[in-house]
């Protein structure tokens, strides 16, 4: 039954892609959901992980750095470390700034990463990217459905490990301090908690998880290029988290599923309803659909499908502050 096997392969690949999105989304949830850190450069941190692992695990290639044929696990650990270090460095410089400024600097970081990906030919392969990245279970590749299932199982296992670890962290004293600093910074600081240190830790942990997501993407697809890490990726991950419910790891998973499903469904729809020559333009409509969905969620269901429930947290409607000019961090001129 080749058709059934095809369905299995398609479904497995879809779920694998959704889980990679979920991984990045879990990382963002540590930064934004737990700590309120506003990272608009998600794609940059994912890219650092993807390229680090790809460069270390591929075979040597003339005219390009890297190619050390490391084992996959080594590449993934290096990806986690590289994205974590990049996050820590950027965080150390900018985390004491107010949230809008952090948004601008992380956005700028992603722009710079993209510039390097496109132009540092000897390091990143330029706009052609890196191909022949070793894939897990390569020996199963002749049997696509089995290959896809094995990769799905591996991805699911890794997402489960990260998810459970984060759930544990959220409930730990560390997680309580994060939310304390997020919701009542003055009170938490009065208890002797250093806001900067905890922010830096949360930012680094989140960035490291994004790096792992990038490494998974590189190795499961086997090919990466700068186009994979544009602002549209950041936008997708953010939409996943906002729709799912910021601050809730279950929400991050659900949001990744919903957005991935919508992405695939709109892809099928544009494929069916538009002629081949206008496919590229029709593809842009998918981004419009997700942009509208994000905006609608922010306006009508601001806390997402699965709002975070934290003991002692105030009801969202109770303390509604109307208003223009709701000052933050002392306001601006």
């Amino acid at each position, binding site marked *: 039954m080749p058709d059934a096997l095809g369905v299995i392969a398609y479904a497995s690949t879809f779920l694998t892609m959704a889980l990679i999105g979920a991984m990045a989304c879990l990382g963002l949830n540590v930064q934004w959901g737990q700590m309120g850190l506003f990272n608009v450069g998600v794609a940059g941190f994912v890219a650092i992980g993807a390229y680090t692992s790809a460069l270390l695990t591929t075979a040597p290639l003339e005219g390009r750095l890297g190619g050390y044929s490391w084992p996959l696990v080594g590449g993934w650990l290096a990806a986690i470390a590289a994205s974590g270090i990049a996050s820590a460095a950027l965080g150390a410089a900018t985390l004491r700034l107010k949230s809008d400024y952090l948004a601008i600097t992380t*956005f700028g970081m992603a722009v710079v990463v993209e510039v390097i990906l496109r132009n540092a030919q000897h390091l990143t392969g330029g706009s052609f990217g890196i191909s022949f990245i070793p894939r897990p279970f390569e020996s199963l590749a002749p049997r696509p459905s089995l290959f896809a299932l094995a990769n799905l199982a591996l991805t699911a296992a890794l997402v489960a490990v990260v998810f459970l670890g984060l759930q544990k962290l959220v409930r730990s004293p560390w997680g309580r301090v994060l939310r304390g600093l997020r919701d009542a910074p003055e009170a938490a600081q009065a208890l002797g908690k250093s806001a900067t240190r905890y922010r830096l830790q949360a930012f680094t942990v989140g960035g490291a998880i994004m790096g792992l997501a990038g490494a998974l993407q590189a190795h499961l697809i086997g090919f990466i290029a700068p186009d994979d890490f544009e*602002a549209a990726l950041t936008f997708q991950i953010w939409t996943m988290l906002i729709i799912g419910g910021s601050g809730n790891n279950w929400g991050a998973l659900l949001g990744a599923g919903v957005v991935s499903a919508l992405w695939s469904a709109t892809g099928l729809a544009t494929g069916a309803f538009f002629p081949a020559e206008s496919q590229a333009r029709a593809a842009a409509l998918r*981004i419009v659909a*997700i942009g509208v969905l994000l905006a609608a969620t922010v306006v009508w269901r601001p806390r997402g499908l699965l709002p975070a429930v934290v003991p002692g947290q105030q009801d969202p409607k109770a303390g509604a502050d109307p208003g223009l000019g709701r000052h933050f961090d002392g306001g601006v001129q």
Partner: protein
Amino acid sequence: MSLQFLADGMIAGATIGLGAVGITLTYSILRFANFAQGEFITWGCYVTWLLAAAAGAWLPWSAQAIDPLSVGLNVIFAALVAMLLTGLLAIALDAVLFRPLRTAGTTASAAWAPASVSAVIASFGASMALRALIEAAVPARQAYLSTELQIAIPLLGGVRLTPDQILLLAVAVVLAVALQIMLTRTSLGRSMRAVSENPALARVVGIDVSQVIRLTWFIGAALACAAGVMLGLVVQIRPSMGAELLLPLFAAALLGGVGSVPGALIGGLLVGVAEAATVQLLGAQWRAAVAFLVVIGVLLLRPSGLFGRAH
């Protein structure tokens, strides 16, 4: 080394400065970093392109280039109408997206986030949607506001500028001066500054805050449209042209000091010259990194910017 890069930088910088005025105004009056500002540049340029093509088709005499410029009356007329339309687009976007976020009952995307952060997220979504709409609507082929070649006129010190570029610089200066006079000398401008200082107090003394907000969006987007036309006369028109300018816009607004309109314009000029110098010294591909260095440098060394008030 030729001083030509200074002139090129000034042209690019005037574009950035005009676009950055909207960033600094929305930041000081609506209190959020608007990631959709770059799309007003793109939309302004595309609307101008469409209107100019339509005017050129209906009234062929208008497409005749006005000597010594490379464009005809149709482009000038289209640019003026497009500024109006882009301003209205921004007001419409505020009505459907940002006003609901400001009003009571709808708190932020999370209980802990200030409303301003929801606005940033919303503006990020809006920017993706606005850009993708253009990609979907416009056929992917080369588009130009002007295809005519121009001879650059030699000026002081071996610097050369085309007549178009000289006109653009003049227009940028006129717009900047007009805006500054409006902000400092008219009652509308005083209302805007009052809302920026203290919205609650401004409302108490009877200032129509909604009107001020509409005006803020209109000015920021209309100037972004002007920037888009300036850009469109120099380079090929692309759906990503505004988005690629977003980081320089932020850099200019931060460098000038958030809330300062002259600061945004001067910041734009400085960023433009810094980019041009980088292109000259290191190569065009590293241009995009300059704005990031400016952002980081300003935030670390002088967060209030050159002309901003320390707080």
